C-alpha cells in the first residue's frame, strides 16, 4: 500500500536548492533505503515525510493527506522520524521517561504505555539503563534510545536517519532485526544510510540521490549491483557485487550478479559444477 507519495517536490534553503523535482513512493510492509553522499538532499527529503518541511513546489501525501494541510503533530502519529544526531531529540530526565513521553502525548493509557516501554527498551538492549539520564549514555546507546522512543508509540511508517552509524556489530544486528520485525508487522521503514552492506542486507528497494534529485530507484538487488550508478553517487559498491565484477574481468563470469555472501557462494558452486560436467 502506498503510504507516502512524494510528487515532483522542490525545496531550497535561502535560495540554495536542496530538492529539485523529487518523486518517490514509500510503501507499507517494505524497507526503502535512501542513499547518496553528504549534501545529496536525503535529510531534507525525509523532513518532508512528517511535515517538518513543506514543499515549495509539488506535494507530499501521507496516507492521502497533503502535508501542507496537516500539523506536524498529526503527521507524527503516522510517521515517526529518528534523526541522525540523537541529541536533537532527547530531553527527558531518564531513559524510561524519554520513551514514555511520546506515548503519553499520543494519549495512550499509562499501563499500556508502561508495557510498551518495557518491550522497546528490551528490544533495543537498554533495559539495564532505564533509570539513567539519556546524557550519560554512549552515542550508540542514545541513538538506540531515540529509536526506542519512536517505536514506543507505534507509527505506521518509521524513518531512520543513519541508524547504524557508530553501532557495533551486535547492535547493528539488533537494529537489522528490529527493522525486519517492523516490516513483518506491515509497517513501512525508510532508512537513510551510507552503509551499503547494511542496505544490502535489509532493503527491499533503494533510491540513490545526488544533487537534490533521485538518480535511480528500484529493487535493492538491481540498484546495489549496478556499479555505475553506485559510483555516480559516490558510494562504495558492496563487497559481493564488487567481487563478481572483478571476477568477470578475470574471465570467471557468474550467471546472476550476487548481492549477498550466500548468493555469491551458490553462484560459484553452480559454475564449478557446470564446468566439471563439461
Amino acid at each position, binding site marked *: 500500500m502506498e503510504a507516502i507519495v512524494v510528487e515532483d517536490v522542490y525545496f531550497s534553503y535561502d535560495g540554495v536548492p536542496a530538492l529539485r523535482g523529487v518523486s518517490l513512493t514509500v510503501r507499507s510492509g517494505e524497507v526503502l533505503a535512501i542513499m547518496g553522499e553528504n549534501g545529496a538532499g536525503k535529510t531534507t527529503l525525509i523532513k518532508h515525510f512528517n511535515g517538518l518541511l513543506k514543499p515549495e513546489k509539488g506535494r507530499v501525501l501521507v496516507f492521502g493527506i497533503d502535508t501542507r494541510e496537516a500539523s506536524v503533530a498529526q503527521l507524527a502519529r503516522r510517521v515517526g522520524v529518528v534523526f541522525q544526531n540523537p541529541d536533537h531529540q532527547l530531553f527527558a530526565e531518564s531513559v524510561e521517561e524519554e520513551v514514555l513521553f511520546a506515548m503519553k502525548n499520543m494519549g495512550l493509557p499509562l499501563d499500556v504505555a508502561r508495557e510498551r516501554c518495557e518491550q522497546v527498551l528490551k528490544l533495543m538492549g537498554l533495559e539495564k539503563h532505564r533509570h539513567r539520564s539519556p546524557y550519560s549514555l554512549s552515542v550508540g546507546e542514545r541513538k538506540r534510545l531515540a529509536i526506542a522512543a519512536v517505536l514506543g508509540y507505534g507509527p505506521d511508517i518509521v524513518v531512520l536517519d543513519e541508524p547504524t552509524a557508530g*553501532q*557495533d*556489530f551486535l547492535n547493528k544486528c539488533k537494529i537489522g532485526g528490529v527493522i525486519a520485525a517492523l516490516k513483518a508487522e506491515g509497517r513501512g521503514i525508510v532508512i537513510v544510510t551510507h552503509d*551499503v552492506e547494511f542496505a544490502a542486507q535489509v532493503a527491499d528497494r533503494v533510491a540513490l540521490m545526488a544533487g537534490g534529485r533521485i538518480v535511480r530507484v528500484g529493487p535493492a538487488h538491481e540498484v546495489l549491483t549496478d556499479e555505475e550508478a553506485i559510483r555516480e553517487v559516490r558510494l562504495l559498491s558492496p563487497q*559481493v557485487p564488487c*567481487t563478481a565484477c572483478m571476477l568477470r574481468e*578475470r574471465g570467471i563470469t557468474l550467471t546472476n550478479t550476487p548481492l549477498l*555472501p*550466500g548468493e*555469491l557462494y551458490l553462484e560459484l558452486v553452480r559454475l564449478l559444477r557446470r564446468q566439471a560436467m563439461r
Partner: protein
Amino acid sequence: MRLVELRGVSFRYAGGDDYAIREVDFSAGSGEYVLLVGPSGCGKSTLLRVLNGLIPHFYEGEFSGEAYVAGLDVRETPTHVLARHVGMVFQDPENQLFLSSVEREIAFGLENLGLPRAEIRRRVEEVLRLFGLEELRHRAPYELSGGQQQKVAIASVMALEPEVLVLDEPTANLDPLSALEVLSLVAELAREKGVLVILVEHRLELALRFATRLVAMEKGRIVADGEPREVLEQVSRLVGCPPVVITYKLLKSRGLALEGPPLTPEEFVDSLVRGWEAWRR
C-alpha cells in the same frame, strides 16, 4: 622498551562496580597500524585514555599495573607532556575544531608549544601539503565537509609530530569514500613516517585492509592479538566479518580450499582465480 608498553593494567572508574579494563598487556612499536575492535563497552576507549594519560590523571578511579608511552611512565607524566607524544582524534571533529581558518587551527597547537615562528610555519606547510589541504587553508573548518574536517583534525594533531596517533571511530559520520580516504591517509603516516597508529573502528570492511595488526577486546580484556588474517576468524564472533570473509568461510566449509581469509575484494578475487584451476580438476 617499545613505544607503547602496558603491563598488567587494570582500571576501575570511581563509582563503577566493575573493572573497565583488567590485566591488559599490550605493546606496540613504530610503524604499526593496530586495529582495535570489540563490542561497545568492552574497554577500548578506556584503554585509549590510558595512552594519553587521561587515565589516571583526569578520570578518577583505581589504577594498577604499569604503562609507558615513548619511554615515559604515564602515571608520573602530566598529560600536556604526553600530548606531544600521543595525538588523539575522535568521532566528531566539530568538537576539536574551533578557530576561524584551517591554517590557524593547525598552528594553534604549535603556538601553545612555544615553538619559534619559522618552525611553526614549516610544520603548518608540511601538514597542509601532506593532507592535501593547501587550497582550503583560508577556509573556516565549520564550512568544510565532514571528511575534510576530520582531515583537518588529524592534520592539527600530526603537526605536533607525535610518535603515536590514536583514533577513536574517526569515520563514524563520514560517507564511505571519505572514510576510505581518511583511513588510507593514516596508513601513509604509519608507512612513511613510522607513526604508531591505534585505530578503533567498527566497519571492518573499510579498515581491515590497512591494519598490520588486529587486537580484539571483550569485557575489559584483550582476547585476540595478531596478524589480521590469523585472528580474524577468531574475533568474528564479537565483531562480525566482512562479506568477502563470510563467502570465503562458506567455500572453505564445503571443502574448497583457498588462501585467506581475504581482507579486501581484490585479495579474494586473486585467491579465487588461483584456486579456480585447482578446483576444476
